[in-house]
């Protein structure tokens, strides 16, 4: 039978998670487009308003947070055995977050703090509603205690992230006196290693083994990683850069090694699409913390802060998220496309291999070009990297559209190659 929307209590209507993924697809295009249009601004970027600031937040809020909200709304109920408390509230998050990010980024790009402030308020409101939904889910959670613990830690970071974000927006708009550098650093750490990072690490321990048909990493290791990561984040917030980098590096290395060991014990030989990007993202995660360590020891190369930011945001978080989306978009579409009369769509029929391979090459080329551009201080390389990133984002949008069309048509043929999930 075909279920009416909402009938499957823990399987949300397809339109709910996919509206967040769709918005992320559009914001990724916008982020690369802005960077392509203003390449020289990246080389001299020091954190102020302007196109690079806008592009950064199009990625962090528009792509990373947007996808995190959509993915956790669908995946956490499965992990925690708790339904989403209110579909209406989940939809409202999208209706506030999408215009919020667009207005915030537009205001930032136009050096208009007043406009940016409106976007910030909408965004914070959206994330506050999401935080309530997340907290309600985590509070009633059964099972997957490690994932739940990561969820609570991420939620705490989200609360602090929103507070520091509002403080920074108020400073831009009203000139409030605050230690700008300290708040900005705290905001960066809370957004990346905190909210997004802890969610990514927690869900990785459950999702990646599931996708690869592998055992999960041992719970004591997952908890050790979490505690070490929280200690590192706390050290960074208190200004202990060296301790923060060392703790973060230890957590990152143990996390990636534990997952690699789990993946090696998988029962299905082929890892399939998405995992090359996940592995690149892990390299960037460790490299970002190595760069942070070099900065703390004052042995970093010129433009180290820019290199650090590139390794952290497009290198680790964006690459990881795109790799995971390559897998979970067809997987979730297959689940939602299942009907008694027409059967379950094959995931392989929703996975356009050549398109995803092209996306991987273009995205990795984009990140590599940006890193080299930052090392050499060459704006033309930034433009080349942004062009590759934009092309990758177009290909990714084509992949997303392909899945939507296919699941609507649901005209599935038996595969001639093994599927990826």
């Amino acid at each position: 039978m075909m279920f009416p929307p909402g009938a499957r209590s823990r399987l949300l209507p397809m339109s709910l998670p996919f509206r967040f993924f769709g918005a992320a697809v559009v914001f990724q295009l916008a982020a690369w487009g802005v960077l392509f249009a203003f390449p020289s601004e990246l080389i001299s970027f020091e954190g102020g308003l302007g196109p690079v600031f806008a592009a950064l937040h199009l990625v962090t809020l528009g792509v990373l947070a947007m996808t995190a909200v959509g993915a956790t709304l669908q995946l956490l109920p499965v992990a925690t055995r708790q339904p989403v408390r209110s579909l209406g509230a989940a939809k409202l998050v999208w209706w506030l977050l999408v215009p919020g990010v667009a207005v915030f980024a537009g205001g930032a790009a136009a050096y208009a703090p007043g406009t940016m402030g409106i976007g910030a308020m909408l965004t914070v409101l959206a994330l506050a509603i999401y935080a309530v939904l997340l907290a309600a889910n985590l509070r009633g959670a059964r099972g997957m205690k490690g994932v739940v613990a990561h969820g609570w830690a991420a939620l705490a970071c989200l609360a602090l992230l929103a507070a520091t974000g509002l403080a920074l927006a108020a400073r831009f708009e009203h000139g409030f006196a605050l230690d700008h550098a300290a708040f900005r650093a705290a905001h960066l750490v809370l957004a990346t290693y905190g909210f997004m990072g802890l969610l990514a690490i927690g869900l990785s321990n459950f999702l990646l083994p599931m996708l690869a048909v592998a055992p999960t990493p041992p719970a004591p290791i997952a908890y050790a990683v979490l505690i070490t990561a929280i200690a590192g984040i706390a050290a960074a917030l208190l200004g202990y850069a060296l301790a923060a980098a060392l703790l973060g590096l230890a957590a990152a290395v143990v996390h990636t090694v534990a997952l690699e060991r789990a993946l090696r014990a998988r029962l299905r030989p082929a890892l399939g699409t998405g995992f090359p990007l996940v592995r690149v993202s892990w390299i960037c995660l460790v490299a970002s913390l190595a760069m942070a360590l070099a900065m703390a020891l004052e042995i970093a190369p010129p433009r180290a802060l820019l290199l650090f930011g590139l390794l952290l945001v497009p290198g680790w978080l964006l690459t990881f998220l795109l790799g995971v989306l390559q897998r979970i978009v067809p997987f979730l579409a297959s689940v939602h496309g299942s009907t008694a009369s027409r059967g379950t769509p094959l995931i392989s029929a929703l996975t356009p291999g050549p398109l995803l391979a092209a996306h991987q090459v273009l995205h990795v080329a984009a990140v590599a070009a940006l890193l080299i551009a930052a090392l050499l201080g060459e704006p033309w390389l930034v433009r080349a990297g942004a062009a590759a990133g934009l092309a990758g984002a177009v290909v990714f949008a084509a992949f997303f559209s392909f899945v939507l069309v296919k699941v609507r048509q649901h005209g599935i043929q038996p595969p001639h190659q093994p599927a990826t999930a």
Partner: protein
Amino acid sequence: MEFNRHISRRLHEEHDATLTLWGRVESTLVAGKSDPALLKSAAASLSHELDVHFEFEEKELFPRLAAAGEADIGELLAEEHAAIRAAGRSFIELVRSDPDAAQLRPLALELAERLFSHVQKEEMSLLPMLEDLVDEEADGELTAAYTS
């Protein structure tokens, strides 16, 4: 994931065996190799899966999910059972009657994919739910019913 109920552990062990066997089938066929003995073994295993494992889940477990307000997951898994059954019966018949048939390879690959995806979902949703829904007494009854 660690399972405390006997019935969850039993089903989990069968899932592992299924994944290991069909992982071999998939990698053998993708490598372009032919292994009639392996396909025969896969057909025999699949026959048990369809007649015993699936039947048990549909008669004993999915109704319990529905009674606990989790009908959606049971119905999704039942839809997948139907798709696997249809492809599985054709595969078993072909292995028996015409093991050199050209359509055997794509059929086996389709089955491998469907089984992997299905087991993933059962491991992620069905077995953890059983841990909540089944008490010690019911666990004993279900395990006895499954192994009898």
